[in-house]
C-alpha cells in the first residue's frame, strides 16, 4: 500500500516552523513503511522564501494568494481540502499548533471527517496505520485506526525528531485554484504579541517555568526569566500565573496551553496539577523546586529540591553563571 502524503507547512513568512518539521518526520516515516511519497503544502502570500526553505526537505506545492495573507480558517481549509481532493492525497499531516488546530479540522470535515489529533506514535499493522493519541490530559493513550480516506492527523512536535534537509533542492510547484476557493466572510483585525527575545517554549531545549510561588510579574521575570537566560532557554508558566495576569498567555504550559518535551524542564514553585503535568511530563529531564515536600510535581521529577524559590533561584543562577553551565539553543 503506497501512500500519498501531504504535510501542511506552518511558517513565519520566511521559513518553515520547527513543529512542521516534526510533522514531516512523521509523514516520512509513514511513507517509508508504505512505500509512499511526501509533499509539503505551503500556503500564504508572497511565500517564495518559505517554499525555498521547505524544498530543502521535500517537494513543495505552493498556493500563493493575497487571500492567504492572514491565517483565517475559511479560505485556508478550503484550499487544503481542494488540493487534497485534486491531487488524491490519502494522508494529510500538520503540526499540533493553534494554526493547524484551527484550520486542519475544518478541512478534515470537508474531506469526510477521518481525523486524529496530537499523534505521538504510529505503526503500520496489517496495512492499517495505527495512531497513538493522548487522552484525558495524557493520563491515557488511545491507539486508533481511522476509517475512510483521506486520513487527517495533527502530530505532536515533541514526539517526533524534526526532519533534516536532504542535501538537494526539491521541486517547487505553484498551484492555481479557482477564485471561489479563496472566498472569506471573516476579516482579520490584527495580532497582539509580546515581543520576546527568548525562544518559544515549543522550540527551546531548556524550559524554565514558574508557578504560583511567584507573586508578581517583576519577580517572575527576575527569577524565571533570569534562570531561563542563564541556561539559554525559554520561560514558561503554569496556568495559575497566566490567569492572575502575572505571565503572558503564550507562556502557558499544560493541557490547554502548550504541550512540550524539552531536554530539560525546570519547574519553579509549580505544585504539579494534572493539567500542568499534561504539558510537560514527557520532557527528558524534569527538575522541580518547591517549598512543599508533598507537592505532586516531585512525583514526576528526576531531581527535586525542597525550598523557597525566592532563595534558591538567585543562588542557582549565580552558581550556573560562575560554572558556565548552559546549553546552546
Amino acid at each position: 500500500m503506497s501512500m500519498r502524503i501531504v504535510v501542511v507547512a506552518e511558517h513565519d513568512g520566511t521559513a518553515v516552523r520547527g513543529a512542521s518539521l516534526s510533522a514531516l518526520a512523521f509523514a516520512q516515516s509513514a511513507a517509508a513503511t508504505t512505500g509512499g511519497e511526501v509533499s509539503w503544502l505551503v500556503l500564504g502570500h508572497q511565500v517564495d522564501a518559505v517554499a525555498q526553505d521547505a524544498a530543502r526537505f521535500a517537494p513543495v506545492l505552493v498556493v500563493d494568494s493575497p487571500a492567504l495573507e492572514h491565517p483565517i480558517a475559511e479560505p485556508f481549509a478550503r484550499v487544503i481540502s481542494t488540493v487534497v481532493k485534486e491531487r488524491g492525497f490519502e494522508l494529510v499531516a500538520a503540526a499540533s499548533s493553534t494554526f493547524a488546530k484551527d484550520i486542519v479540522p475544518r478541512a478534515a470535515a470537508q474531506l469526510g471527517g477521518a481525523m486524529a489529533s496530537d499523534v505521538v506514535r504510529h505503526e503500520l499493522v496489517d496495512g492499517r496505520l495505527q495512531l497513538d493519541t493522548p487522552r484525558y490530559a495524557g493520563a491515557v493513550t488511545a491507539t486508533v485506526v481511522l476509517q475512510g480516506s483521506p486520513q487527517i492527523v495533527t502530530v505532536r512536535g515533541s514526539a517526533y525528531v524534526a526532519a533534516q534537509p536532504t542535501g538537494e533542492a526539491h521541486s517547487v510547484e505553484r498551484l492555481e485554484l479557482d477564485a471561489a476557493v479563496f472566498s472569506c466572510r471573516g476579516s482579520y483585525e490584527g495580532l497582539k504579541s509580546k515581543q520576546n527575545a527568548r525562544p518559544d517554549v515549543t522550540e527551546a531545549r531548556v524550559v524554565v517555568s514558574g508557578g504560583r510561588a511567584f507573586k508578581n510579574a517583576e519577580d517572575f521575570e527576575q527569577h524565571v526569566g533570569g534562570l531561563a537566560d542563564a541556561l539559554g532557554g525559554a520561560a514558561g508558566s503554569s496556568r495559575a500565573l497566566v490567569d492572575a495576569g502575572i505571565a503572558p498567555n503564550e507562556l502557558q504550559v499544560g493541557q490547554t496551553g502548550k504541550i512540550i518535551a524539552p531536554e530539560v524542564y525546570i519547574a519553579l514553585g509549580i505544585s504539579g496539577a494534572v493539567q500542568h503535568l499534561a504539558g510537560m511530563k514527557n520532557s527528558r529531564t524534569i527538575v522541580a523546586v518547591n517549598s512543599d515536600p508533598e507537592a505532586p510535581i516531585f512525583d514526576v521529577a528526576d531531581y527535586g529540591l525542597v525550598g523557597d524559590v525566592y532563595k534558591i533561584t538567585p543562588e542557582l543562577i549565580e552558581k550556573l553563571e560562575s560554572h558556565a553551565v548552559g546549553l546552546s539553543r
Partner: protein
Amino acid sequence: MKILVPTKRVPDTDQKITATADGSGVASDHLPFVVNPFDAIALEEGVRIVEKLGDDSEVIAVGIGEADYVQQLRTALAMGATRAICVECNQSLDPWNVARLLKEIVLREKPDLVLMGKQAVDDDANQTGQFLAALLDWPQATFASRVELLAGEIRVDRETDHGIETLRLPLPAVVTTDLRLNEPRYASMAGIMKAKKKPLDVIPVAELGVALEPRVEVLRYHSSETVRRGERLRSVDELVERLRQDVGAQA
C-alpha cells in the same frame, strides 16, 4: 438573538484516570460526570450575552448522550440557559458524528451563534466545533478569549501560539471558547429552582435522521507511565552538579 451551546459531559478529570486492565476502555465508572469545563465557559458567555441584551433572546443548551444526561442539562438550565435539548443516544460517538448530529439541531433551531468549548477534556480532540462550522459552511473563530457582539457580526479575540489574534465574522458563526473567556458561575439555589420549570426536550437520536458513520476506531487504551529517577537533592550545589553532568552542559 438565539445562541446554541452544545455540551459534552465528561468524567471529572480532577481525579486520576487510568485505562481498564484489559485496555478496552477507561476506568471512569467511579467518577462523577461534569459538564466539560470549556463548554461551561461557552454556556456562561451565552448567558452573559443574553443577560446584557435583556430582550427575549435565548440560550439553548444541547447534550448528546444517555438518558441521565438530563442531570447535567438541568445544571446548565440552573446556570441560566433558557431551555435544553437532550439527544438520547447510547452509542459512543466520535467528533465527526457529533458534528453531524449537531448540524441537524442547528438546522432545526436556526441559531445566530453556536458557542462551544474548544475541546472536551476526555478525548482532547479539539475538532467538533471546526467540523460543525465546516458542515454548516459557517465562518468560525476558535479559542476565543474575548467575544464582542456587533450589529450582525461578532468580534473575537483568539488565543494563538503567537499572541492574541482578533477576527471579525458575520453571523451566523461558530465560536469555540478558551479558558480565559470567563469564569462560569455556580448554579444558585434560585437558579436550581427555576431550572425545574424550564423546557427540556428529549429527542431520540433516530429522529434526527443521521446514519452514524464511525471514523475513529479505538483499538485499545493504555495508561501512560514514565519512570522518573525521583532523586531528592539537598543543595543548590547538587543541582548545579546534576545539570552539568546529565544535561550535556558545557563546562
